[in-house]
C-alpha cells in the first residue's frame, strides 16, 4: 500500500496538526497522527482529547486504509526535507511505514490505529463566518489574562460574545482583565461562547496558517473552525462568564498619560529590585508633576525610576504586581497609553489613548 503526496502539502499539514497530537502516556495512539486514505484523498487526524483536528488533502494511492504514525517522529522528519523535493511516498507495511523522498528514505514504526478516537462533529450548531485574522487578533489581545488554574473553568477560558457591530473577547483571572472589541464584518452574530484557555494556542496557531474567511460552528459542548478541508474542534466551557462590566470603574480620580515605551522601560528597571511578589509602587503627584515607580527588595536593594507623563487629578500611591501590568502591552499598538486610577484598593484602567481604542485592561492593586 502506497500513498503519494506533495512535500509542500505534507509540510503544511504537519504544521497544522503535529502539535495537537499530545504526549499521552497512557494511550500511545493519541501521540500519533492517523491517516485515513482512499484512492484520491487522505484525512490526517490528531487529537489530545481536548482538541481534535482533521485535514483533508488530495493524494494518490492504489487502495484505501488506515495508519497511525507517531506525530513527533514524522513531523521532525518531514520538516527537515528540502523544499524542492516534490513528492513524498509513504509505503505502509505491517507495523512500519516507509517514507521515501528523492533524497532520503526512512522507516518509522507505526502504532495500532484501532484505538484512535473519533473526532466529534457538530451536528446541531450555530454557524458564523469570520475573518481568521480578526479572530486571532481578538484572541491574542486577551488570552494571556485567563486564569491558569482550572478551579473556575469559566475564568480559565476566553469569553467571546457579540455586542452590536463588534465581537468582544474578554478574559480574566480575577486579578486583571483584558477586553478587546473587533469589528465583525459579517452580519451573522456569534453566540456567547467560552473557549478553554488551554485550547486557545491551538486555535491561534491554526488560524494563523489558514487565514481568510473561516466558518465557526458553535454548539453547547463544542466549537469548530473550518476552512478548505481543515477542521478543528475544541471543547467549550459550559458556564457563565462573570458580569465583568460592573467592575469596570466608570470614573477615576487620577490620570497619567505616558509613552508606552517609556513606561515599559521604567517598569523593567524597577522590576529588577522588586520583591518576590513583583511588587511595584506607582507614585503619582499631579501638583508636583511627579510620577515615579518605586521598588524595594530587602535582599537586593531598592530603586526609584521617574517616568515623564501628563498628570491630572489627585496624588496617589498604589502597589501593583509588575507582571500583571507588563502583560497588557503586547495588545496595545498605540504609542501612548493612559493609566486611570480611582484610589487605594481600586482597580487601575490601562487603555491606549490614540489610534485603535478597542482595547481595555484592568489591573487590581496589591493590598500592602
Amino acid at each position, binding site marked *: 500500500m502506497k500513498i503519494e503526496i506533495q512535500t509542500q502539502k505534507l509540510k503544511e499539514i504537519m504544521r497544522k496538526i503535529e502539535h495537537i497530537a499530545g504526549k*499521552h502516556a*497512557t*494511550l*500511545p495512539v*493519541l501521540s500519533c497522527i492517523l491517516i485515513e486514505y482512499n484512492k484520491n484523498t487522505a484525512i490526517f487526524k490528531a*487529537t489530545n*482529547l*481536548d482538541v*481534535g483536528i482533521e485535514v483533508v488533502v488530495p493524494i494518490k494511492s492504489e487502495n484505501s486504509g488506515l495508519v497511525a504514525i507517531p506525530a513527533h517522529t514524522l513531523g521532525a522528519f518531514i520538516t527537515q526535507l528540502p523544499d524542492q523535493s516534490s513528492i513524498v511516498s509513504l509505503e505502509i507495511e505491517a507495523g512500519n511505514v516507509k517514507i521515501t523522498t528523492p533524497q532520503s528514505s526512512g522507516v518509522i514504526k507505526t502504532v495500532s490505529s484501532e*484505538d484512535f*478516537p*473519533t*473526532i*466529534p462533529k457538530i451536528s446541531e450548531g450555530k454557524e458564523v463566518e469570520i475573518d481568521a485574522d480578526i479572530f486571532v487578533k481578538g484572541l491574542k489581545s486577551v488570552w494571556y489574562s485567563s486564569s*491558569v*488554574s*482550572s*478551579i*473556575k*473553568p469559566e475564568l480559565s477560558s476566553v469569553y467571546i460574545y457579540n455586542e452590536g457591530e463588534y465581537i468582544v473577547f474578554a478574559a*480574566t483571572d*480575577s*486579578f486583571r*482583565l483584558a477586553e478587546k472589541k473587533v469589528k465583525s464584518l459579517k452580519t451573522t452574530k456569534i453566540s456567547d461562547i467560552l473557549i478553554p484557555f488551554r485550547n486557545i494556542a491551538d486555535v491561534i496557531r491554526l488560524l494563523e496558517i489558514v487565514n481568510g474567511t473561516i466558518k465557526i460552528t458553535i454548539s453547547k*459542548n*463544542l466549537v469548530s473552525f473550518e476552512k478548505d478541508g481543515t477542521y478543528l*474542534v475544541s*471543547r467549550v*466551557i*459550559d*458556564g*457563565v462568564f*462573570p*458580569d*465583568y462590566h*460592573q*467592575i469596570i470603574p466608570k470614573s477615576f480620580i487620577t490620570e497619567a498619560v505616558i509613552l508606552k515605551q517609556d513606561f515599559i522601560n521604567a517598569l523593567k528597571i524597577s522590576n529588577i529590585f522588586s520583591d518576590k*511578589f*513583583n*511588587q511595584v509602587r506607582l507614585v503619582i503627584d499631579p501638583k508636583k508633576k511627579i510620577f515615579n515607580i518605586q521598588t524595594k527588595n530587602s535582599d537586593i536593594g531598592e530603586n526609584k525610576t521617574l517616568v515623564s507623563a501628563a498628570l491630572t487629578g489627585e496624588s496617589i500611591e498604589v502597589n*501593583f*504586581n509588575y*507582571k*500583571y501590568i507588563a502583560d497588557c502591552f503586547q495588545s496595545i499598538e498605540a504609542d501612548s497609553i493612559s493609566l486611570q486610577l480611582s484610589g487605594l*484598593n481600586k*482597580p487601575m484602567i490601562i487603555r491606549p489613548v490614540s489610534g485603535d481604542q478597542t482595547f481595555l485592561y*484592568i489591573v*487590581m*492593586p*496589591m*493590598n*500592602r
Partner: protein
Amino acid sequence: MNDYSQMWQTALIEIESAVSQANFSTWFKETRIVKELDGVVYLGVPNSFTQEWLYKKFHNSILRILRQTNDQVRALEYIIDKENNSKKEEGKRKMVSAPTISMPLHDFYINKEDNLNPRYTFESFVVGPFNELAHAASQTIVKAPGQTYNPLFIYGDPGRGKTHLIQAVGNKIKKDLPEKKVFYLTSERFCTEFFAALQENKANQFKEKYRRYDVVIMDDVQFFSGKEKFQEELFHFFNTFKDTGRQLVFSSDRHPNVIPGLEERLRSRFGTGMVVDLQELDQESRMAIVRAKCASQNITMSPEIVEIVSSSIEDNIREIEGVVNIIACQTQLKNRELNVNEIKNILKNNTRPKKMVSVKDVVRVVSDFYNIDEESIYNKTRRKEVVRPRQMIMYLLREDFGISFPSIGEKLGGRDHTTVIHSYEKVREEIKKNSLLAQEVSQLRSMI
C-alpha cells in the same frame, strides 16, 4: 447517589478486565453515573471525545455489564459532566500572586436569575404622603402575591421612585417567599426578546420562559404604545399569567387610560387590579429623602442645608440623589462640612433652572405667534386681529401662571378686571368646542 456509584464501581471492575489498561484509564477514569431514570442510565463523561468513543466502541459492552448488575437497565445515554471538568489539575498550580486583591467578580450588581437590583429594598424606601398609597398596596402584594391586587399598576412622573418600589416588591417576595420565582424586566426587553424569538422561530420557548415565574415585574409599559404586535403578545401573556393566579406588577409614567396607542383590551386589563399613582413630592418627603440619602452616604447635613436642598429640587428623587452625591463627594474632598454658599453653588450648577417667565415674555411669544406688533396688545385698539391674541394672553396668564385678574388687567395696559374675567372665560369655553384653538394653546404653552 451512593447507589449509583456502587453500581458503577461494580461495572467498572468488569469493564477493567475486559479492556486494555491504557484504554481503561483513558476513557473510564473520569466517568460516573449521573442519574437513572425509567431504566435509562445517564453516564457522565468529561468531554465529547469520550462521549463519542464510548458510544462507538464500548456501548454494547457497558450496557451488557450494567444489565448484569441491574436487570432494570434498558438503555444508556451519555452526558457531558460539568463538574468533572473542573476537578482536574486542582491545586496543581498555586497562584504566586496572592497579595493582589482579586476582583469582586461574583458580586453581581444585578442578579442574573431574576434581574433584580438588590439595592432596591423597602428598607431604603422613604415613605411619605406622596407615595403612601402605592407603598401600602405593594406591602399587601408582598404578603400574598397573586391574591389581592392583580395586576398592581404603579404610575407617576420620572424620578418618583417607581422602579425602586416595584423592585422592592420583587426583592421582598424573594426574601420572604423563596419558593416564588420572581422576574423583573423592562418592557423594552420584553419586546426585544420576543422579537428575537420570532426571528428564530422560537416564540414558544419565549412563552415557556415566562411561564416559569410566579411574579413578573415589568417596568415602563408606556413603551408598548403603538407596538401592536407586542401588545398582542403582552395581552396573551397577561391572560395566562393572571388566570393561573400569579402576580403581575407594572409601572408606567402615566395612567393606563392616557397611554396613547394602547389597545382597549390591554387598557382595561391594566385597570382590573389596582392602579395607584406616585404623586408630586411634598416638601417634607423631600426633606426625608435628603436625610435618608445623607445617612446612606455617611455624611451629616445641618437642618438648614437639608431645607435648602429639598426646596430647590422639586419633583425628582434622582436629582436629589445626584446632588447629595456631589455634596458627599465634595465634603470628603474638602474634609469639612460645606457652607451654605457652597451648597447653593452646587445646586445652581446641578439642577435644572426653574423657568422664570414674565408677563412681557408671554406677550412677546403670543404676539410673535400671531404675527402682530407687541405694542398693540397694550393699546386700546379693538381690532379683531389684536383682540384674540390679547384674550389668549390673559387666559394663559391666569390658567398657567395663576396671576390675579386685576393685576393681569393692570399689566396689559390698565384694563378692568372684569374684562380679563370675560376674556379668560371666553377662551376657556371656546377651547372646549374648537380643537384648532386647543392646539394653538398647547403650541403656545410649549413655546413659553
